[in-house]
């Protein structure tokens, strides 16, 4: 296997899907000759032409709806939001149309559309370009929401999303684009809806996704030296959520921490916590359920504040240590 960056892995998935299926096309702002704001589409326009790698006017509602309409009419569109924050302009088409169309029509149409959602803070782009809004979409039946953390999963899950008959949003944390990892060649699918135990441990279960998986693994490494064994569950899919894997892990470790970058209140950790608290795993819990989420503020510009606005490794280490040692 070769190493690819997360962005390269996504690029490869797009390339493979477009090769394999003429119905697949990509649209978005500056994804053509510019290659995409984060370079994911790169040279694809040269390979597949402007009809299948379409630069769009800046019109998020119209283009999102056009993607939905094209999906219903038998194509397989992939829409890149330049930043997932701009989906605020397109919620109507994503939530009221794409998510509900199949159901409202009694199951008579499919809506195989993929929305690519670059997200997250850490680039100094401030409040309107740094949000982690996956919880909004995971609240909406009819949508699927995925959030890979590794290049291999990015490729396999994007391919799965493109082949899925239902609308899928793939959240791509911007700080992940440059990370590298082994990526299998050719076509493969990483199933939507299955979490992955990224590290085994017996003292505490950390449930995280995307960039927070990496931070959790770093924290686990540090705590290992102190004799604390952290199990890290990489969610990968936010809707559907793989409850079984989470519950099994909590029953083993008896402690749960949910770590996420989105705003703490009603972020994905709220759901993980509630899923466990209502489950058979409740009786196994030896400590309150820890949540570390984003600050109750917009993402600020100042790098000092920006760091303070989302969980960092130091804070995770300390919180997990306290949780395991019963000092919550």
């Amino acid at each position, binding site marked *: 296997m070769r190493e690819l960056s997360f962005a390269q892995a996504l690029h490869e998935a797009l390339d493979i899907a477009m090769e394999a299926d003429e119905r697949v096309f990509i649209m978005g702002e500056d994804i053509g000759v510019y290659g995409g704001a984060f370079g994911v589409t790169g040279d694809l326009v040269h390979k597949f032409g402007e009809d299948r790698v379409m630069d769009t006017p800046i019109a998020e509602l119209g283009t999102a709806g056009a993607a939905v309409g094209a999906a219903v009419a038998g194509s397989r569109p992939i829409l890149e939001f330049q930043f997932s924050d701009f989906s605020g302009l397109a919620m109507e088409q994503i939530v009221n149309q794409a998510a509900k169309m199949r*159901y409202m029509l009694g199951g008579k149409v499919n809506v195989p559309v993929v929305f690519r959602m670059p997200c997250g803070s850490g680039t100094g782009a401030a409040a309107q370009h740094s949000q982690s809004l996956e919880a909004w979409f995971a609240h909406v039946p009819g949508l699927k929401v995925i959030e890979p953390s590794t290049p291999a999963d990015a490729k396999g899950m994007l391919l799965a999303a493109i082949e899925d008959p239902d609308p899928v949003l793939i959240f791509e944390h911007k700080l992940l684009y440059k990370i590298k990892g082994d990526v299998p060649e050719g076509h493969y699918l990483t199933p939507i809806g299955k979490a992955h135990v990224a590290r085994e441990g017996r003292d505490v279960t950390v449930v995280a996704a995307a960039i927070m998986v990496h931070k959790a693994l770093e924290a686990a490494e540090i705590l290992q030296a102190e004799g604390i064994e952290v199990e890290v569950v990489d969610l990968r899919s936010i809707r559907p959520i793989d409850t079984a894997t989470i519950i099994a892990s909590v029953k083993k470790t008896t402690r749960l921490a949910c770590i996420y970058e989105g705003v703490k209140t009603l972020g994905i950790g709220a759901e993980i916590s509630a899923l466990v608290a209502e489950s058979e795993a409740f009786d196994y819990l030896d400590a309150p359920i820890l949540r570390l989420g984003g600050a109750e503020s917009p993402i600020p510009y100042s790098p000092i504040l920006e760091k303070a606005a989302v969980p960092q490794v130091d804070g995770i280490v300390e919180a997990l240590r306290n949780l395991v040692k019963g000092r919550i």
Partner: protein
Amino acid sequence: MATLVFIFEIETGLMNSALKKANLGKNQRPFYANTSPAALKEALRKMHLVRMFEEMAEDSYIRGLTHGTMHLSIGQEASAVGITMGLRKTDYITSTHRGHGHCIGKGAEAKYMFAEFFGKEEGYCKGRGGSMHIADPETGNLGANGIVGGGLPLATGAALAIKQQKRDDVAVCFFGDGASNEGAFHESLNLAAVWKLPVVYVCENNGYGMSVSTDRSMSVPNVADRASSYNMPGVIVDGNNIADVAEAMVVATERARRGEGPTLIECKTYRTRGHSRSDRNKYRTKEEIEEWKARDPIPLFEKELLDMGIFKQADIDAVQASVKAEIEDGFNFARSGTDPVPEDVTRDVYAREIA
């Protein structure tokens, strides 16, 4: 509407104007000259079907047989049928909250529509959609829409798919005057123009968006005035005259099929019923309503058909009688349909069941 180029259409009976132009008498405008009697009869039938369907639906609603809300298009049938009569099954339409006419025009059957209203599994949406989401993908109707302007981007996308699949179908987007003030209108028409998509935008301008008249909601007198912003033809027609509507539509459709891009057609019309049941008509006068009722599109069409000697009164009576029977049958079919079971509430959310 510079030149009308009609292409012979097996499905619809519209004939090539080049062949027919020679035959135009002074009473024979292109619509009548180029449409077969069978197709004219079918158009009339559909107009009656829409009307009687809605009257029966209204009645059921008043009697408490259906719940939810309902938007009637009574008075607007010429636009719904005139626009759809020349379309193929593989062409798409997107419709509105006031979509019964579009649905029937595109080929839906009354009985499954009634079944939908009664929330039955036999309904077009298996009882999940109701009036406001009535749809029939089988006949190319991608659905009514509860969101004003919601269909504008969808139709644009369907046209994009048609173009990418190299089909010569068209997508037709119905929307109201009120919807034309939504951002979705602007974005969609611009996309369609830039990409030269095979789409026809049909504004059914009935003078009001709910209670707000167009002069209080729009900064220009006509929706079609805005076509110039998108470098596309903007055509205004008498929406209560089916011939006017259909002729403009032929031009727009052929332009789209030839790959020359979108058209905006504005049908000036009127809804004689209130917006929905809660409407007390406080925003308009009785006189205005009566004036428009006098221009009811159905008698208007019938009179032209009789005047031109295309049909006799007996033909028309027969059409009405058959529609009446269809409505009654459909109503009964629907009433005895199957109720959904509560356990099925999450069925059909996804194509593949999720964990």
